[in-house]
C-alpha cells in the first residue's frame, strides 16, 4: 500500500476510535470534605481588594463581581459592574449559568466575608470553578481602597507603595481623576496583579 494511504487509513481509524469512545471527563467534581477543608485552609478562594481594584481599573473583561447581600443593600451601595445574587437565591436555576462556567472570574462579596464565603463554599461543593471571595468584604474595601490610611513614616517602602496604589485605585474607582501611570509605576501594582491569575496551576501560554 502507498504510504499516504496507510497514513490516511491510520488517521481515520484513530479518529473513529476517539469519536466512538466516551470522553474522559474526570474532573474534580464534588470535592470530598478533605479536599474542601484543604482549600479552606489554604485560603485560595480569597482575592485581595488590591487585585480586584486593579482588575476594575483595567476593566478586565474576565471579572464578574457578585453581590450576595440582600437586594436593599445592593441598591444602596454596590461595587461598579457588580450583579446581585442574594444568598437566598443562590441555587435558583437562573443563576446556575452565571456560577457554573469557566469564562469569568466570579468574586463574591458581602459586608464582611461570612456570607460571601458561605456562597463560595456552597458553589465549590457543587464542583463549580472560578468562584472567589473578596477578602475582607466591603468593610475592608472601604478601609483599604476608598479610604486608605497613610502608613506611619517609619513603615517600610512596600507599605507606602501599597498605600499609593490603594489611594490611586480608590480615586479611580471613586470617580476622581487619576493618572494611571502613577499607580502602575509602583511595584505593588505588579505584585497583586500576578495574583490575578487564579488558574495558578494552569500553564500560561499564548504567542
Amino acid at each position, binding site marked *: 500500500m502507498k504510504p*499516504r494511504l496507510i497514513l490516511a487509513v491510520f488517521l481515520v481509524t484513530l479518529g473513529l476510535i476517539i469519536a466512538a469512545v466516551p470522553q474522559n471527563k474526570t474532573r474534580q467534581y464534588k470535592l470530598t470534605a478533605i479536599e474542601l477543608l484543604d482549600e479552606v485552609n489554604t485560603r485560595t478562594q480569597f482575592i485581595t481588594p488590591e487585585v480586584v481594584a486593579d482588575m476594575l481599573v483595567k476593566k478586565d473583561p474576565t471579572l464578574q463581581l457578585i453581590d450576595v447581600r440582600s437586594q436593599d443593600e445592593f441598591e444602596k451601595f454596590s461595587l461598579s459592574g457588580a450583579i446581585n445574587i442574594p444568598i437566598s437565591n443562590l441555587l435558583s436555576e437562573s443563576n446556575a449559568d452565571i456560577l457554573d462556567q469557566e469564562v469569568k472570574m466570579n468574586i463574591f462579596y458581602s459586608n464582611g466575608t461570612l456570607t460571601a464565603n458561605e456562597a463560595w463554599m456552597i458553589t465549590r461543593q457543587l464542583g463549580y470553578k472560578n468562584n472567589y471571595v473578596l477578602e475582607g468584604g466591603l468593610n475592608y474595601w472601604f478601609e483599604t481602597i476608598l479610604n486608605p490610611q497613610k502608613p506611619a513614616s517609619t513603615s517600610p517602602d512596600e507599605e507606602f507603595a501599597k498605600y499609593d496604589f490603594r489611594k490611586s485605585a480608590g480615586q479611580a474607582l471613586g470617580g476622581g481623576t487619576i493618572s*494611571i501611570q502613577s499607580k502602575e509605576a509602583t511595584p505593588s501594582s505588579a505584585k497583586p496583579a500576578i495574583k490575578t491569575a487564579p488558574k495558578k496551576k*494552569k500553564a500560561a501560554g499564548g504567542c
Partner: protein
Amino acid sequence: MSESITTIKKSKYLNPYIGGVLLGLVLLAANFISGRGLGASGAIKSCIVSASTTIAPTASANLAFMKEYTSAHSGSPMKNWLVFEMLGVLVGGFLSGAIAGRLKFKVEHSPKITSKKRLILALAGGILFGYGSQLGRGCTSGSALSGMAVLSLGGFITMMAIFGTAFALAYFFRKNWI
C-alpha cells in the same frame, strides 16, 4: 496519487506528511511537558519588553502594553518559555540546514522582482505580522496551530482568518512569488 509519489521522492525536503506527524509530536510533547503549545511571536514581545524596560524604565512602565505584559508574567521577561523555545528553533533550524547543506546567505525571491523589492516587502510583511500577532494573541504557530491542537475556538477563527486573507490577496502579489 501514484504519479506524484515520484515527485515527492525527488524532493530535497522531508515528505510533508512525515514532517507534519513529527511536528505534531513536538507539539504534543510541548503540551504534555509544559501544558502549552508552541509559539513564536511571544518571544519577540518578551525581547521588546525586556529591552524597553532596560533602556527606558520609566517610559515603558507607563505604557499600558507593558503593564499588560508584566501583570501576566512574573520574573524577568527574558526568562520565558517562548524565548527558550525560539532559541531552540534557531539551533534546530541551523542543525537541519547544516545536515542538508542549505546554509547560505541569500535573498530568496521570484526572478520577476529585485532583491531590494523582496526585502522591502519582507519588512512590510513583518510589520503587519508583528502587529497582527499581538492583536490576535498569537501567530500561526501560537494561535492557529497550537490552538487547533487543543480545539480552541479562537485558534480555528485565527487560522481561517490568516489563510483566508492570504488566499484572497494572493492574486495581487503573485509576481512576488511565482
